């Protein structure tokens, strides 16, 4: 369980995390989604006590991270950009970490096997591919068999087989009752991996919801209707709380009504329908529409003075 309470972090003039509150619950995979620069990595560093919050607090299993007696057995972390000395072998990197927390040496061999690095464990980390580095990071995160996992972009640099592997691994860890918190900017990946989503933009919370609900909210349950009588249909819809947008000469997208209600309405009015298709936005589209404001505001910021002059 991770609980962030009104968490803020300022670096000089930049407010990287802005009054962020959320709870990451055990037994499921919680995706941490946001465009680049949204404050995901900063939030994860705050969880791990690597950076101190400017305001607010974040606890893991009810404690501040630095008050954990055996941090590696409580929280396993995979940090963005390999946080590993390149001159050391994978095995000795893991052994040194294990020793600091008093984790038995046999566990090092276990996690190496678990992530499939047996063949290269004695090689220097500097010679590793990005994917191997990610596997080593996952091995380090699992070292203390922690109750909570915090993973920053774990599928980064993995090949499709590796991505399937990490997805399966995280799902099974969640099924064991662990708290799994995974950041990503790959929305499609999140839809396959996560149960719950925490979406941020410009350091602020945009959504805290299930994956299904997130997509539903963002797409607004649109229905694509193809008919030769577009004008008649528009007329028929006037008394209903629905928005209609034209796709082409004989097709419209209707939001705010179910396909069933539209079909029944068309039948009552004798309107011929050629197609009646519920359109579910992909997670990607949902994400784009929800974070658009955050992203646009960010890029527009520099132009603001010029715009003011123009207006």
């Amino acid at each position, binding site marked *: 369980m991770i609980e962030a309470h009104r968490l803020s972090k300022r670096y000089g003039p930049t407010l990287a995390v802005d009054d962020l509150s959320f709870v990451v619950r055990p037994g499921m995979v919680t995706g941490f989604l946001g465009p680049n620069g949204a404050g995901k990595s900063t939030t994860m*560093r705050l969880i791990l006590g690597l*950076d101190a919050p400017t305001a607010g607090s974040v606890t893991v299993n009810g404690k501040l991270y630095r008050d954990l007696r055996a941090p590696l057995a409580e929280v396993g972390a995979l*940090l963005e950009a390999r946080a590993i000395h390149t*001159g050391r072998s994978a095995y000795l990197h893991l052994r040194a*970490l294990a020793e600091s*927390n008093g984790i038995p040496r046999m566990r090092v061999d276990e996690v190496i096997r678990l992530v499939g690095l047996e063949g290269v464990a004695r090689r220097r980390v500097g010679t590793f591919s990005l994917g191997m580095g990610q596997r080593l990071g996952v091995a380090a995160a699992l070292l203390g*068999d922690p109750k909570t996992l915090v993973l920053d972009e774990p599928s980064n640099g993995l090949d499709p087989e590796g991505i399937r592997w990490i997805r399966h691994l995280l799902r099974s860890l969640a099924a064991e009752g662990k708290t799994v918190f995974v950041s990503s900017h790959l929305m499609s990946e999140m839809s396959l991996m996560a149960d719950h989503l925490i979406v941020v933009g410009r350091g602020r919370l945009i959504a805290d919801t299930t994956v299904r609900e997130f997509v539903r909210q963002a797409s607004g349950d649109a229905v694509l209707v193809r008919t030769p009588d577009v004008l008649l249909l528009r007329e028929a819809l006037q008394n209903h709380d629905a928005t209609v947008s034209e796709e082409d000469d004989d097709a419209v997208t209707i939001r705010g009504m179910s396909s069933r209600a539209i079909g029944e309405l068309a039948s009552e009015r004798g309107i011929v329908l050629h197609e009646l298709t519920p359109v579910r936005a992909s997670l990607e589209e949902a994400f784009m529409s929800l974070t658009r404001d955050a992203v646009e505001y960010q890029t527009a910021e520099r132009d603001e003075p010029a715009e003011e002059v123009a207006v």
Partner: protein
Amino acid sequence: MNAAATTQAATPTTGGARIGVTQARVIRSEWTKLWSLRSTRWALLLSVVSMAGLGILISAVQMAHWNQMSPGDRATFSAIDVSLGGWHIAELAIGVLGVLVITGEYSTGQIRSTFAAVPHRLPVLWAKTIVYAGVTMTLMLAASLVAFFVSQPILRQHHVQTSFSAPHVARCVVGAALFMTAAGVLGLALGALVRNTAGGIATFAGVMFVLPGITAILPNSWGDSISPYLPLNAGTSIIALHADPHTLTAWPGYLLFCGYTLGALALSALLLTRRDA
């Protein structure tokens, strides 16, 4: 692979003692980290070879040229300065490695893994200091003894040798190792302050080698009054058989150097707990 079964297979509490961070465990971890890097092994090898070998080599060269040396040079010949002269090179290797012990973690991002495992951070600084000081003291003491005891028979050719039991000689031989141990810790502390390899090495070199150069171009009376208190001059007073008029005596000089080192270490400890990693 069934990941669920595999992760459950090992509950890491099976090792007897309960898991958790202790100072002793962090020391064990830092010991593993120190020896698992090629750069460490090379730097330590270089420092041992130069500390043990340079004095012996110079002793042999000096004896071979003894007959060509001026009476003045012969009169000021110091068996201690020559046989223990290896510290001039060894201290640089030791100081630079001291910087790298900590900045290597910052430059690679390893420091985040380290502090995530030991969130109180200070045990890491203490462990690095203890391990590195222990290793340098052991290696440099051995190298210093080798340099001394191998050089003396060579110097006997022209009867300019000294003996370990002569006044102050043992203090100089052990003092070379003591000086380099403190210099290594100074490098480590500066590395922890600057958190950057190039900056750390530059700071160490500046403090140790550039300051004496600046006092040399000051008016003599200023230079003479400042010079004894500079880190290098104060620290190496423990390797000099006799203090000259413009140096501190052995132990006060060395303790002053230790004071600088501990000051830098204390400051780095303070900042380590306050700064973001």
